[in-house]
């Protein structure tokens, strides 16, 4: 089950690389949220109920439902197609594939550093790293603010996967704080994003370059 979901997640990453329409990003985010929920569910089946509810909130409510809707709300008018960066079309797909291969290599190399149930952890690990790197790659490759937000969320997903993989034993309210942080940062980014739209009619970040030396 977990393996299947991980494969799915990685496929979604490849798909992210070739997205043309901003809308499809949002659906993709929702999909990833659901996948993450599935993974979390598989991981924490036998844990206590509070943890479960928390995960539920974090993944389904927040990642899968709130964020996509929020984003589609703030970008509803006239932003359909994002400005793709210097690396276009299938090249970017090739890149993200390469990144995924690299992260597989990483997972393989670090396999024996991992302790108990290394095999499963290695898979999570691979997915997480590839997600973070792909997120960074997208952010670097695109000049569009929405895409930047998306890439941030992808990186956050990767980190969530990492936390699953490493089964980190953070205290409850630290998790809460983390969730809150992500939440607020997305919120504030959204707000600024709106202001940005008012200021510079479209959302090409190359306009945000008056501060430089």
């Amino acid at each position, binding site marked *: 089950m977990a393996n299947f979901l991980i494969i799915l997640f990685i496929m979604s990453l490849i798909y992210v690389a070739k997205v043309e329409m901003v809308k499809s990003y949002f659906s993709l985010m929702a999909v990833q949220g659901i996948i993450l929920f599935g993974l979390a569910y598989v991981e924490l089946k036998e844990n206590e109920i509070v943890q479960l509810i928390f995960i539920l909130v974090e993944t389904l409510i927040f990642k899968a439902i709130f964020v996509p809707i929020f984003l589609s709300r703030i970008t509803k008018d006239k932003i359909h197609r994002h400005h793709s960066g210097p690396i276009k079309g299938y090249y970017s797909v090739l890149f993200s594939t390469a990144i995924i291969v690299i992260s597989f290599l990483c997972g393989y190399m670090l396999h024996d550093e991992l302790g108990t149930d290394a095999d499963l952890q290695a898979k999570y690990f691979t997915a997480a790293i590839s997600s973070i790197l792909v997120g960074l790659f997208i952010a670097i490759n695109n000049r569009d603010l929405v895409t930047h937000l998306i890439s941030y969320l992808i990186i956050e997903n990767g*980190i969530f996967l990492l936390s699953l993989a490493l089964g980190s034993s953070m205290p409850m309210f630290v998790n809460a704080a983390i969730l809150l942080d992500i939440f607020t940062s997305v919120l*504030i980014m959204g707000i600024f994003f709106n202001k940005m739209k008012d200021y510079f009619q479209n959302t090409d970040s190359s306009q945000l370059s008056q501060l430089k030396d």
Partner: protein
Amino acid sequence: MLLYSFFGLTAILSLTAYFVKSRNINHGITLAYVGLMGVLGYYLTQHVGKPLNIFFYCDTLGLIFYFILLLVTLVSSIHYIKFVTFRDIKPNVESLHNAGTIFFTGAIVGVLLTSHFGILWAFMEATTLGASILIYHNRTSESLEATWKYLFICSIGIALAFAGVLFLGLAGQQVRNIDFSFSTIRSVSTELNPVWLKACFLLIVTGFSVKLGLVPLFNVDIDAKDASPSQVGASLSSVLMNAGFIAIYRFYEAFSHTSILPWMNKLLMITGILSLFFSAVYILKVKNVKRMFAYSSMEHAALVLIAFSCGGIGYFAAILHLIMHSLVKASLFFQVSQMHRIYDSKLDEKIGSYLRVNPLGGIVLLLGFLSIIAMPPSGMLISELMMFQSLIANNYWWIAILVLLMVLLIIYGLAIKMLGIVFLKKSSASINIRGVTNFESVIQLVLIIIVFYIGLFRPEIIVQSINSAIQSLPS
């Protein structure tokens, strides 16, 4: 318990400050908050070295930085009062700014006092949010851009840092199921798997570099200090820098008794030298005074890391340097806001013969210049001397020469611009004399004179507290 109530009060006060639109009450709240910090400070002095509760404790380093925070916050809020009287600021902007100040300060207090890596991370994120509010103060396109960049890059950096924390968790989990408090990690650090510790530290340095304003994430930090009002720039380059340093320091200290110590030192050294190089390049290049000061903060952070990575007396030098840099750089940024009032420009070719226009301010700028280029009587001379001492003690000859060269270039760049501002007669300068207020300059002068005092007379209290702060590090 008092600590929790402090954080609670922070939240309440910042909310009230946000909703109250009356100017006087607003500033009153800020000052009241500073008073509250004073109370907490007294409480902390009683509990040095003791855990305050499960997630917080107060060590000497935290205390030192706490009092610097107190001082800088006090001064900057006073300056903000002056600031709003000179600019016509909308009440809602002002109240948001005060709320942000309180929130930001509270977050930094959390960073300084926590004893838990997770919470450290959480408060770091909080500082980002608070800072972004402060940066957005001017509501110009510049500030908007700076805020966006700062927020975005910081969030990614913070995310990477969190990945680092998770690696630490992985390492801990392999030993036995442990919590993330400094003491626990330090006690078991020798058993932890060095690979994960390295991964953790690498990601932490990368993520928090944005707070210290170092390579690889320095860019947005510079922009933020440029586009925000000067007193915000002051706190960003003094207290936030300290916070970033203490964050890295916590991890370093926890791992410092393991086999990866040399590796960590090398990593910090590389980071420091890269940052020094870029700061030198840009100080030679920039035209904008605030950006120049931002780059000089970057330079000093780099020097701190270089000294710190040498170990031994370098630890002492690093912390001493941070203390003094916070005071000097804060006062310089405050002075910049006055210059901006007088000349209505941040470009150095439009600012000239400042000593003639505003003698006291000119003196402040001159002394500040002497301080940041580590000329006596500035104490930075002492800390840089110690830095070179530690470099030579480790036989890092080439690094010493490189650092010397870079520092000379930086001094050249700073001198050309700052002394030009102080003395040169610039034709393109348009002067509005009513911006001159000696009151502010006197405050800044006091800050600089503290640094001179430290440099000349070696105050015992500071020496002892630094020594006790670094005693847990390997000698």
